[in-house]
């Protein structure tokens, strides 16, 4: 299934193929969730936005004009839903990084990876350094890099629309953010 193109999956899912639908979810649910979370939505609201985005896709899939751009469609739809929910809740709190660090600390304490204790600690340390470095980046950097990490196929225009960034700013912002992340990792003794 992983070799099938997104547009083929979209057409099959639009015709009712549930396996194709599940593969689309597997590929892009992280992207949809990310857009909701990076708009500052708490988990419960992000869950509603994610579900509404997939329901919207199910409703529109048979008539979707350009299935090649499905990732962009999902990201843009999730952004619109997120902005509406944000407006309703009238809250614009950032992602709670304390939650993330709690998870991270749990990994350190429990050593809970299948690779075994040594591998677990190493993996946690490498991920931990990366995660902490990422957490120190400005909001705009975090939003853009997280979007690109989940959907590197997005064009500048598509990524810009999904995050509300001007087309001319996406490329320079992406370069600056990646360079900043690399510098922070090197400062922490991690060579990316």
């Amino acid at each position, binding site marked *: 299934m992983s070799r099938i193109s997104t547009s083929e999956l979209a057409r099959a*899912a639009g015709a*009712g193929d*549930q396996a194709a*639908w*599940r593969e689309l*979810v597997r590929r892009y*649910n*992280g992207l*949809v*969730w*990310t857009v909701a*979370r990076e708009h500052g939505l708490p*988990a419960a*609201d992000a*869950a*509603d*936005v*994610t*579900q*509404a985005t*997939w*329901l*919207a*896709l*199910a*409703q*529109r899939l*048979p*008539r979707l004009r350009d299935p090649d751009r499905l990732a962009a469609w999902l990201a843009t739809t999730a952004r619109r*839903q997120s*902005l*509406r*929910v944000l*407006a*309703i809740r009238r809250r614009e709190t950032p992602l709670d990084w304390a939650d*993330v660090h709690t*998870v*991270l600390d749990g*990994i350190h304490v429990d050593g809970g990876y299948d690779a075994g204790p040594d591998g677990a600690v190493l993996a946690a340390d490498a*991920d931990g350094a*990366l*995660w902490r470095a*990422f957490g120190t980046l400005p909001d705009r950097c975090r939003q853009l*890099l*997280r979007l*690109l*990490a*989940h959907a*590197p*196929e*997005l*064009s*500048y225009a598509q*990524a810009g629309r999904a995050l509300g960034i001007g087309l001319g700013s996406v*490329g320079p912002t*992406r370069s600056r953010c*990646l360079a900043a*992340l*690399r510098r922070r990792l090197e400062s922490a003794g991690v060579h*990316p």
Partner: protein
Amino acid sequence: MTERHTEHERALLARLAEAFDRLDPVPSAVQAAAEAAGRQPRPAPSTRWLPLLRDTAIEPLALALRSGADGRVLGFGDPATALRVEVSDMDIGMGAGLRVTGLLSTERPCGKVSVCWPDGVAETPVDPLGRFEIDGLPAGPLCLRLWQADRLVAVTAWFVG
């Protein structure tokens, strides 16, 4: 955007994606809900789709002034249909959930409206003036369906209520 990434950048983004998946994963319930969305009944090709045209959540001043409503007002429509919906919390003492109050204008009258959520539906008749109301709806994704006799004629876009 792939062609603009260098090899190092691609590797760094891939590592980030792995870290996100591990440290802020999509909750299993959210994953299950996304998969279940694919099993929602699909409207027939002849069923019209009514996009969301207005939402006081993001354009509060103009619409709220015009509507005089206390709750959030959404407008859906196409050239043949105008649907105005107010979504509000139930009054204290009236039970839990949301109340949807609507005003429907169509070329041919609709006898009933149903409000759908991912695992349920509630329906109500539309009066001769096009008005309807449904109480006790769950918060979360909702959409409305318009019926003429027993024929589904239009569905609205999903929104988070």
